[in-house]
């Protein structure tokens, strides 16, 4: 038999049942029941949550590792760039020190005009002590112009092209320079050698020459201006019955480490060849 209640009565019954359940829940009757039901669910939820956390950590950690590696690569690149910059700055510092010393030399010798030039090479032959500089006739350089460093005389230009010049160093075996010894003011001739050593020849026998004496250009012969420091005497060879004394000289310029030089541009060498005695002339 199917009894059908009116709709309003059903709603009332359901409402009363709901209120009753709520009342029972609030009074704590359901607590023990809910513990029994929720407890395993909580355990399952905890396990699921832990697994989820694990997966999340794994994913985020791999993401972090990628980021750390990327960051590390960036830092390494930055480090390499900084290292290169340090080397460049050190190079610039060395160049600055050389230029500063050259400027001091130029200020101390204001009677000359100078052009700075970088040493870009050396002669391929070991028989010649030549250097090649990066300034040439386009910069106003001419054959015969003297070349100095911050310490003193380096050599003279022997060949010029448009953008470069070849400089014969004072250590070259071909070179001969008229010099003056200080403080005795005796004159002598300085000559280079194949080994790069320089010696003083034709020092008068009566001249008082000692180790430590300074050697300066005398200006005789017209190839070099006067009073440019060349070097210092290290030892003297005196023979009783010889015509001249000779001496070994330590140059003031370090020729193994030449990087920048100054060319004296306002000095015109004098060609004295026509004045020299010729065998053909009567």
């Amino acid at each position, binding site marked *: 038999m199917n009894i059908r209640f009116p709709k309003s009565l059903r709603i009332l019954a359901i409402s009363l049942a709901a209120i009753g359940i709520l009342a029972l829940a609030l009074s704590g009757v359901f607590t023990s029941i809910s513990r029994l039901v929720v407890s395993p669910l909580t355990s399952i939820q905890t396990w699921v949550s832990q697994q989820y956390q694990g997966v999340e950590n794994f994913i985020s950690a791999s993401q972090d590792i990628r980021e750390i590696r990327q960051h590390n690569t960036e830092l390494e690149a930055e480090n390499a760039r900084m290292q290169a910059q340090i080397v460049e700055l050190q190079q610039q510092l060395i160049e600055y020190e050389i230029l500063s010393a050259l400027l001091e030399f130029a200020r101390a010798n204001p009677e000359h005009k100078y052009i700075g030039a970088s040493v*870009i*090479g*050396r002669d*391929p*032959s070991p*028989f010649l002590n030549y250097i090649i500089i990066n300034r040439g006739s386009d910069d106003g350089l001419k054959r015969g112009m003297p070349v100095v460093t911050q310490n003193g005389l380096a050599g003279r230009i022997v060949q010029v092209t448009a953008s470069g010049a070849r400089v014969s160093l004072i250590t070259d075996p071909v070179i001969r320079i008229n010099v003056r010894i200080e403080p005795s003011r005796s004159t002598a001739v300085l000559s280079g050698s*194949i080994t790069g050593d320089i010696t003083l020849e034709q020092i008068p026998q009566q001249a008082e020459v000692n180790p430590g004496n300074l050697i300066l250009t005398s200006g005789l012969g017209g190839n070099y201006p006067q009073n440019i420091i060349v070097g210092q005497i290290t030892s003297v060879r005196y023979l009783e019955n010889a015509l001249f004394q000779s001496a070994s000289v330590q140059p003031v310029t370090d020729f193994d480490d030449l990087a920048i030089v100054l060319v004296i541009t306002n000095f015109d060498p004098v060609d004295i060849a026509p004045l020299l005695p010729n065998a053909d002339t009567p």
Partner: protein
Amino acid sequence: MSVILSIPVLSIITILQSAVISRLPLVSGTADLMLVLLVAITLQKSVNTAWQWSIVGGLLTDFFSGLPFGLFTVSYLITTGIAHVLRERIWRFSFLMHLLVVLSGIIITHTFSYLVLFLQGNSLQFTSVLQAVTMPSIILSFMLSLPVYIIVQDVVEQLKPTE
């Protein structure tokens, strides 16, 4: 190997010789990279343009050197001739052959240089030249010989199929 290729390659070698090798002396001697390279090229059986390479190498070195023009060209051509003779007469080459030709080349170049400077009125002591220039140059050139020989051999092997 193409003669056209010789111009850029030997130009770089000349610049290296002047800017780097000549700044690394032993006593007063320096290695002759150009000579070592030209000898290594000439001794390769498959290379038939060694004379042209020697002329280009000699002229480039002459342009950079203060010694009379043509000295290096003539020296390198004579060295190439020696290498050619040895290449034709001896069927199998070893690295020792390369060293022997480099030694001959340095002696020829230095003899010419010495004679030229002597004729110009510079009295160079023979023993000083031998001790301070020639012997150190030979040692330095020998040190360069092995890497240059291997590189040239590999490059020629690589280029051979295209010739």
